[in-house]
């Protein structure tokens, strides 16, 4: 039995999801016999952690601040073991541009893109390069904030006229945006779990199937009933194995630990990695726990494994 601090909430736009994830993790930890302290992350995080002196911190935060290495670095400074990926993997994965560079350098597939900072437009006249970029990537384009975990802020541009407003919207979330080639295909999410003895395993593949086939509308993900999720996805075994291998390769390349969810588009030419979420949702309807469940790992087991992995890593590092 350990004393576990569950870090949840925070100030990110995914606060609500995080609170639900956190509450569910707390329940599981209590069932597992741990002493649980829930912490809604705010200005008093440090004193609270000092006072609580947990044996381990379960980080159930989503989005900037919680998922990008910031919290991880602080907790590491306090010498508290924590669940999930370490500082550098968190920072790399949450920054979609860094993650895509790493993937491309390693020969893993990810859609072609160009990234820009707000300053580039303001000070370097980057707007003049837009036409060349549009020609290289071709329409439709996807415009994303670099550092936003969920589908928030993602816009499609079907023509040059739609590009500036899409970029403007993305800049509302992050001073850096990426413009990505839109890849047609099936939307897949692959959960990956680290193994206690070392290495990692890919979970059964989840497929997101929009009910009303509007490819361009990522907001469908938010609307209950507009997307359904199948698991395991109906894929040829050979193809499914390949997709899982790619997900696993990305997980390892970026140095992820504990668990993560790799989002992909399965194009005709094969899988294309969109992003890696190092702290995916852990709610009743979230994809990672459900994929784990489909593999015979129920939620309590998933949480227990994450905690044990955290303690193992800390033991090795000490």
């Amino acid at each position, binding site marked *: 039995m350990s004393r576990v601090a569950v870090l949840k909430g925070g100030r990110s736009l995914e606060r609500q999801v995080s609170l639900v994830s956190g509450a569910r993790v707390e329940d599981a930890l209590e069932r597992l016999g741990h002493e649980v302290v829930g912490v809604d992350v705010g200005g008093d995080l440090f004193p609270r952690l000092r006072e609580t002196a947990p044996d381990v911190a379960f980080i159930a935060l989503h989005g900037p601040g919680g998922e990008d290495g910031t919290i991880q670095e602080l907790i590491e400074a306090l010498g508290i073991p924590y669940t999930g990926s370490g500082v550098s993997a968190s920072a790399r994965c949450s920054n979609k541009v860094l993650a895509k560079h790493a993937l491309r350098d390693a020969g893993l597939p990810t859609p072609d893109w160009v990234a820009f900072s707000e300053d580039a437009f303001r000070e370097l006249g980057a707007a003049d390069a837009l036409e060349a970029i549009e020609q290289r990537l071709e329409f439709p384009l996807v415009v994303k904030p670099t550092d936003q975990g969920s589908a928030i802020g993602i816009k499609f541009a079907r023509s040059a006229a739609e590009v500036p407003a899409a970029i403007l919207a993305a800049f509302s979330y992050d001073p850096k945006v990426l413009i990505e080639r839109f890849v047609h295909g099936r939307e897949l999410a692959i959960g990956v779990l680290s193994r206690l003895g070392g290495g990692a395993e890919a979970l059964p593949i989840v497929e997101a199937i929009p009910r009303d086939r509007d490819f361009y509308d990522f907001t469908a993900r938010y609307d209950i009933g507009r997307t359904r999720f199948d698991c395991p996805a109906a894929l040829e075994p050979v193809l499914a194995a390949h997709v899982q291998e790619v997900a696993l390769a990305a997980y390892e390349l970026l140095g992820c630990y504990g668990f993560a969810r790799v989002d992909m588009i399965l194009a005709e030419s094969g899988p294309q990695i969109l992003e890696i979420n190092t702290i995916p949702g852990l709610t009743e309807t979230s994809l990672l726990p459900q994929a784990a469940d489909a593999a*015979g790992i129920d939620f309590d087991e998933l949480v227990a494994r994450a905690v044990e992995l955290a303690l193992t890593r800390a033991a090795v590092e000490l």
Partner: protein
Amino acid sequence: MSIGDDIRRPRRPAAHELERYEALFATRTGRMRSSVMRDLMAVTARPEVISLAGGLPDTTLFEPALFAAAMDSIADGTTAEALQYGPTEGFEAVKECIVEVMAEEGTVVAADELIVTTGGQQAIDLVCKTLLDPGDVVVAEGPTYPGAVPTFCAYEAQLVQVEMDSEGMQIDLLERTLDELTAAGHRPKFIYTIPTFQNPAGVTMSLPRRRRLIEVARERELLVLEDNPYSLLRYEGEEMPTLRSLEVPHGSRDGGDFVIYTGTMSKILSAGIRLGWVVAPRPVLAKLNLGKVSADLCSPSLTQYFVAAYFAGGDWREYVATAREAYRSRRDAMLDALAELMPPEAHWTHPRGGLFVWLTLPEFIDTTDLLARAVRENVAFVPGEGAYDDGRGHNAMRLNFSSVSEDRIREGIRRIAKIVEEQLALYGSLTGRARPAVSRARSASPPDQPAERELADVVELPRRSGKAARRSRPV
């Protein structure tokens, strides 16, 4: 505890839907909306955020002593009744209070022409429940009350929105829309309107349009749902008769023909007591009452007793006057701050009452995304998209002035204006165009016809100076 392969349950054999309850959900839940906006709004609840997003009355204005006195008088002899179920249509004593409130709005009704509801929201829900089959059409103003849209959706109605101008819903447009709908085989059931100090646009429907709307309803045998939460919160201008009072000028025993009226204690007493009411033609009222039985049997007895005790104990008009004065100053603070701080590309309405200003930005700014930026600056508003069901409103926002102090209103507007300025500059550099030169000079309304000038200051029209015009008239 460790995870071993031995304790793993068998893998599931075939692809299946992950959402466990999906097959059990009613089809209509597919129309219930959850959105990015809701995630964003969750972040605005932090205390450091200046929220111009709510629609809240300022309940700090209510004297705790008055609250205690009302509760004491309930305790004195009626404790058991206040803790008991009540009649579905509401207690007589409360209905008499409601009759008094409506008389204050110049509308004569009898106590047996209305039923008490659990907030005005329940009245909207009951009207939908009573009138709508899946696929039926509801016609409303565009923009409309964001809280009504999910109700229409939950009953699988099709929402058709008619644009407003300075005089409220454009009735000629409404008629054309109704013709088109009928020709296309659709079946409009009722027209939902907030004619006075509309939420969210802050516009008030003119008298000729009110009269014409009633004629249209009569000619086509359509019902009108008149939602009237704000009319006692008037800060300037002449009183406007309710649709209900135009249809039934001196009160009648027949309940009128085509107007359903809903009101609420939320804005004139308390939103937390959840007490509203609905007045309707008798056959409709009977159905609404049946609908209410299945919804909640009766509205809370305790809060009904509270209302009755409060009305009996003193002059409720006094509190309304206090609130009105406070909100008027806050509205002025907001209009002044907007006029002074907003870039010329922004346009907004000049409400003569109610709780809201509707602000429109250039087409290329999405206010839902803008809210993400605003929250980082600790200020919030309601993105306009929630006031439509068809994707319009994405470049507009609703600003509330009733629940925030004047200082904070000004600071909130300053922060929003700064973000808007940044976005405009950024869009300019993105498109390689400098911002079009729009004069920052504000023209004052000509003194001879200030009212006309200000009424023009609405949803789709170029804005005018709020400050100069408002001050040109005594308030």
